[in-house]
């Protein structure tokens, strides 16, 4: 007699099951234990155990549930960096949560479960469920503060998010109508029954999934939501969930719409140009620090989706490999440079943080100021930070795919972005009388970690030659 638990089907779900058990355990503990650092430590530890469980898989591209759940190196990489990003948030969220910490951290773990599932699924239904799991979790996280500002931001995020969910459902049905399957791999190669319906599916799914990535014209919730929620939640919304949304975009549009690569190419070319430009220009004149970062994260999403233009628009194998490497590397670096910058706003004890509120912080704590400056440099793509190498490989992929005009637009946009990133650096070292800083260890250390990793991750570029084994995991025949 074999136990159900030992079946290979369930073995792959061990991390999810484990995280779920811990999360429910936490909710029960909440009756007795009110110390938030206990939950913080517990969730970080369980995330690392989940990572170990993930790594213990035999990841030879095994598929389960009729191809809906494919375990491979590519998905594993994203699952792990998503867990790392949640651990980073769990590590630094401790300061601001004033009540019910168990709910916050349990929800974070539930979101992680959904994230792991989403990074392995190649079926629109699975993706939809996982995606909704993340959405609902983040709605609760963003409302957790229960101040008026938190609730307003959460409400806006929720209302617009629901619309996006509707688009996903509609898009999935159109997809099914025209291809006869929800499976992305077979759908991408299927003979198309109705092309207009498939195009509708393309647009609708783009709206639904692009929403989380805050691509223009779906970006408007982002600025309000990032600004209104707690700093740790904004950091998570702009780093972890964005990377996941990016992964889903890669999967859905490169695998599921492999037959429509021309349309995918035009769609993402237009959207990436508009998004980059919109984000950077709007950030230029912004005076609120978190809103500036929100615009900058819109612009960064514009850079990220350039990967899709390379893969769909170019037939060069080198460009393809470079683009996938850039996607993986950029996602990892992005988590720390963006998340760390958002966490840096913890240092100012105010609700609405203007950029000028940072003036004088460089003289009070040079360590903090230099760390933040490093992350801003990384966002701007200035060497020798990891952000530079991420952009470098991205633009290299564009150029080797003969999409030099996109590379030029991207580089011009990064040049513009330097304006507003450097503004913050200059302000930080200006003398001032401000006394509203909170420079305790709990604030400075997460920022310092982000800064160190924003430089140290540069060494990962030496992993580029080993990339070819992972690229095939995307699901495209290579």
């Amino acid at each position, binding site marked *: 007699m074999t136990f159900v638990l030992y079946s290979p089907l369930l073995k792959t779900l061990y991390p999810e099951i484990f995280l779920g058990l811990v999360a429910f355990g936490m909710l029960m503990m909440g009756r007795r234990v009110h110390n938030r650092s206990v939950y913080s430590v517990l969730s970080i530890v369980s995330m690392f155990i989940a990572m170990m469980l993930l790594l213990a898989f035999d990841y030879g591209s095994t598929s389960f549930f009729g191809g809906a759940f494919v375990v491979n190196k590519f998905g594993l990489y994203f699952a792990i960096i998503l867990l790392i990003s949640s651990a980073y948030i769990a590590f630094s969220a401790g300061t601001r949560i004033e009540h019910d910490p168990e709910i916050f951290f349990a929800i974070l773990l539930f979101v992680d479960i959904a994230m792991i599932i989403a990074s392995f699924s190649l079926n629109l239904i699975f993706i939809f469920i996982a995606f909704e799991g993340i959405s609902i979790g983040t709605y609760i996280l963003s409302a957790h503060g229960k101040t008026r500002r938190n609730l307003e931001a959460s409400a806006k995020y929720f209302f617009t998010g629901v619309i996006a969910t509707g688009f996903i459902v509609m898009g999935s049905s159109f997809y099914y109508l025209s291809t006869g399957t929800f499976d992305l791999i077979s759908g991408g190669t299927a003979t198309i029954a109705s092309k207009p319906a498939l195009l509708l599916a393309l647009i609708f799914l783009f709206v639904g999934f692009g929403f989380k990535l805050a691509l223009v014209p779906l970006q408007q919730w982002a600025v*309000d939501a990032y600004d209104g929620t707690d700093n740790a939640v904004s950091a998570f919304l702009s780093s972890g969930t964005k990377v996941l949304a990016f992964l889903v975009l890669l999967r859905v549009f490169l695998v599921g719409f492999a037959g429509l690569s*021309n349309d995918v190419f035009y769609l993402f070319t237009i959207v990436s140009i508009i998004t980059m430009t919109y984000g950077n220009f709007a950030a230029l004149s912004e005076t609120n620090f978190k809103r500036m970062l929100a615009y900058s994260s819109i612009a960064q999403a514009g850079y990220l989706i350039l990967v899709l233009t390379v893969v769909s628009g170019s037939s060069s194998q080198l460009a393809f490999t470079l683009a996938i490497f850039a996607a993986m590397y950029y996602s990892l670096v992005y988590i720390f440079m963006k998340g760390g910058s958002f966490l840096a706003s913890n240092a100012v004890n105010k609700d609405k943080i203007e950029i000028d509120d940072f003036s004088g912080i460089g003289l009070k704590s040079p360590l903090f100021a230099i760390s933040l400056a490093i992350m801003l440099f990384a966002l701007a793509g200035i060497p020798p930070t990891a952000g530079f190498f991420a952009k470098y490989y991205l633009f290299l992929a564009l150029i080797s795919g003969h999409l030099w005009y996109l590379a030029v637009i991207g580089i011009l946009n990064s040049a513009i972005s330097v304006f507003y990133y450097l503004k913050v650096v200059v302000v930080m070292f200006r003398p001032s009388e401000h006394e509203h800083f909170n420079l305790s260890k709990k604030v400075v250390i997460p920022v310092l970690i982000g800064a160190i990793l924003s430089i140290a991750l540069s060494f990962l570029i030496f992993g580029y030659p080993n990339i070819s084994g992972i690229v095939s995991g995307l699901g495209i025949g290579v």
Partner: protein
Amino acid sequence: MVFSYYWFIFLTPLIAAPIAEIVGKRIKNAAGWIASLAIAISLALSIVLWLSLRGTSTPIHNSYRWFGYIDAGIYVDHLTIIMLLMVSFVSLMIHLFANYYMKDDPRKNLYFAETALFTSGMLGLVMSSNLLEFFLFWELVGLCSYLLIGFWFFKPNASSAAKKAFIVTRVGDLLFIIGLAVLYSTLTAKGVTNPLSIPFIVNHISTIVSDIGAQNLTIIGLLFLGGAAGKSAQFPLHVWIPDSMEGPTTVSALIHAATMVTAGVYLIARILPIYANATYVAPDAVLYIGAFTAVFAGTIGIAVNDIKRILAYSTISQIGYMMAALGMVSTFGDSVIGYSMYHVVVHAVFKALLFMVAAVILLTLMELRDVRKMGGLWRRMPWTITLFFIGSITLAAIPPTAAYFSKDTIIDVAYNFYALHGFAFWALWPWVFLVLGALTTALYTFRMFFLVALGKPRSKLAAEAKDPPKVVLIPLMILAFLSLTLGIIQYRFYDFITPHTIVVSLPLLEKYTPLTMVVVGLIITLALYATTKWQRMNLSRNPLYKLVRAKFFLDALYTRVIAERVILGLSSGVSRIESGFSRSVEGTGKGAMGFGSILRKIENGVVEYYFVFLIAGVAILMLLLEIYGGI
């Protein structure tokens, strides 16, 4: 990892530099003693190293892979030892004296930190095992020189002199680094794994010749000569040294007379095999530039009135002799290193002495540097001027002082060069130049000495001058003793550097030509300057005098024509383009800001508008796809 005591020869002053700066801020007098102690340790270690290497001809070579094909480390052979002893000894003497000279300067901690750093750089340069490492130290001493010339930056001349020194030597450095690049790229292309290593160049020159050929070697040699000419102030890059005299006089003694300026000579001596195996152009360029500089700078020295500048031109002229000696490598082989280095050492000793005497004089005369305003100082300050006398007769190479042996040997070698080339007319010129150089040396030396020491005081300050406490003159006395006696070690010195040095001999007439020239110079100056006759001379109309006074218009050519017309013109043109460009960037920025604030208005916080925008955006996207996607 062999990390022996000799690494500390250059590390000790390097460590001492920041300590001197920090401790000296609290305790005013400590900085000088910390720096002196560090250099005394360097000297002691150099002596230990000398004793251990004395009996053997195997050099010490310790190096580690730095990056690419570059090994960095230490290479010490007999030539290096001589430089180490010379630099650390002279530097120690000058540091000891500087404790007195700089005693009232409020920033003396910085001064001693910088001189210690300089000494470290110079010792490191000497010990480098790789030309790139050599170049880094070369730049470090250049930087220290710049900082110390401009040490009294509140004097307007000082800061501009510092800039001039830095920029002029930069021209040489550029040639040097081009030479390095050419050597590196040509040799690595042939599969050599450590192309810039000094032991490789010294010991495997035949490989280099067969790899890149004598023609290319000549080009490399000429480029290196450019670097050496910049650092060692040879024609036509000599113009920075006289201006560098604006720094503290001890700095002039340490850097611009005794040690750093000989770095160029050391460079040529270090990589002499390159010149020995190049075509005749490279060594002859060294020879003619050196010989010409010797007489050229000496001539200007006669017409200058500033005591420090006279000494500066004399330095340029003396280095010309060292260069000329090295240039005769094709005829005399390795022996020329001995001839040249012997003069380097002797010159360092007596020139440091002369500059420190000048420092004493200037301290009591409140920086009045015009020799015409001095006079009669021998009676006022007998100790100092006696030391000055010893320095002067050494400079003029009157027997039996050390310079008589070192300098006249070079002149004798030049005559042998003429003879060995079958009395060819072209080979005569170096000898002629060097002999005329000896004449000019005697002229400017005795003119300076007589104007300073004899006659009546010609200014109020000179009339009130007096000797400093005798204890501060001890370093000067040691140097004076050495200037008088170093001559006895001449042949042992040659054999220490290169065994079996060729001993030149020549007919009696030619043998005494330079000495005759010195005597002629002495007689002329005795007649003119030991009396008051010179005050009645009116040279201001004499065209030759005007030409020499204007330093052959070379300085004017550099500053008025090249710097002010060509480079400033070019730079103002570029700056106009640049300002137009930056205005356009500013305009773009302003436009972008305006555009951005319009974009921000979309984000008004009202969710209903967001839906409208979303739906409109999606509709436009579908339209665009309809057009471009091609359904």
